[in-house]
């Protein structure tokens, strides 16, 4: 478990270093995810401890967004002034994006889904 957490942190660290050094438009943690994925492909199995550590982090994942979300208190004025474009923009865009992506993916991969 401790070794697995170390591996996860190490992947993120390497991801951050590579993203920073090459000025890539992808954040360090996403590169870290790619790196860990490559390691798993090479090992051809998920070590038990890593499965537990990943499961634990993912179970708590919603909680991790609360501090950033609380940042809303910094922008009450701007949010009030632009309430209509921001609110309607977010709502319409989220609904349409989910519908378009979901329908397209279901249509393009039809027949394969039940395999």
């Amino acid at each position, binding site marked *: 478990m401790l070794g697995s957490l170390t591996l996860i942190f190490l992947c993120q660290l390497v991801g951050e270093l590579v993203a920073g050094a090459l000025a890539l438009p992808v954040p360090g943690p996403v590169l870290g995810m790619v790196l860990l994925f490559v390691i798993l492909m090479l090992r051809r199995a998920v070590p038990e401890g890593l499965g537990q550590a990943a499961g634990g982090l993912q179970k708590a994942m919603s909680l991790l967004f609360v501090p950033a979300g609380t*940042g809303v208190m910094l922008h009450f004025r701007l949010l009030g002034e632009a309430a209509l*474009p921001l609110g309607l923009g977010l709502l319409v865009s989220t609904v349409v994006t989910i519908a378009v992506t979901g329908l397209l993916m279901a249509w393009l991969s039809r027949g394969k889904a039940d395999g």
Partner: protein
Amino acid sequence: MDDLGNLQETWVYLSASPLFHLTLTLLAFQAASWLFEKGGRNPLLNPVLGAVVLVVAVLLVTGTDYATYFEGAQFVHFLLGPATVSLAVPLYRQWRLVRRSALAITVSLLCGSLTAILTALGVAWLTGGSAEVLASLAPKSVTAPVAMAIAEELGGVPSLTAVLVIVTGILGAMIGPMVLNIAGVRDWSARGLAIGTASHGIGTARALQVNETAGAFAGLAMGLNALATALLLPILWGLLF
């Protein structure tokens, strides 16, 4: 009187210590999760939204500023990075399924990414949003660090973008399943891909709770959309404005 004085001193000490705001964040999330379960997992009682409302209320009542709060909350915030890395595990477990639909994923993701950008810009422009508002809103569907960097590049307000990213995530987790049900999308990989494209990590966290296939596709979509938006949005912005 002495007791009150002690209490006051203790409060001053505690409210300046990271432990207090860290615990507040955890308690607020526990309370919001309890409400979510009690309410039959009604998406409108989204625990992230509930916890944010509770924390903001406590901070406003106690006159605490965000920087002080964040000194404690940063320990929770920090784990977002490792949690993102750990998404490689469900992705690896679902890899056979992912590889089989590689073309479908690429096409759906690119169309979804463009839809997210263009609908947000279109609606906000039609309803009178300023250039600053448009630039802050445009990258809202991608994970926060990428979205903030893009917003800065376009002349938006990065910290406003961070909030819009979170709201988009909560909104997608709240109404996404309903939208997909109405659209008749039942396939877990398509449902996950849609939620991850539109609402990044918060959507992914929600998808993981429901189904591992959906979670893996959502995590994959989150990573790919960060890349797609970072590459496409600055070009689109240059063409439009």
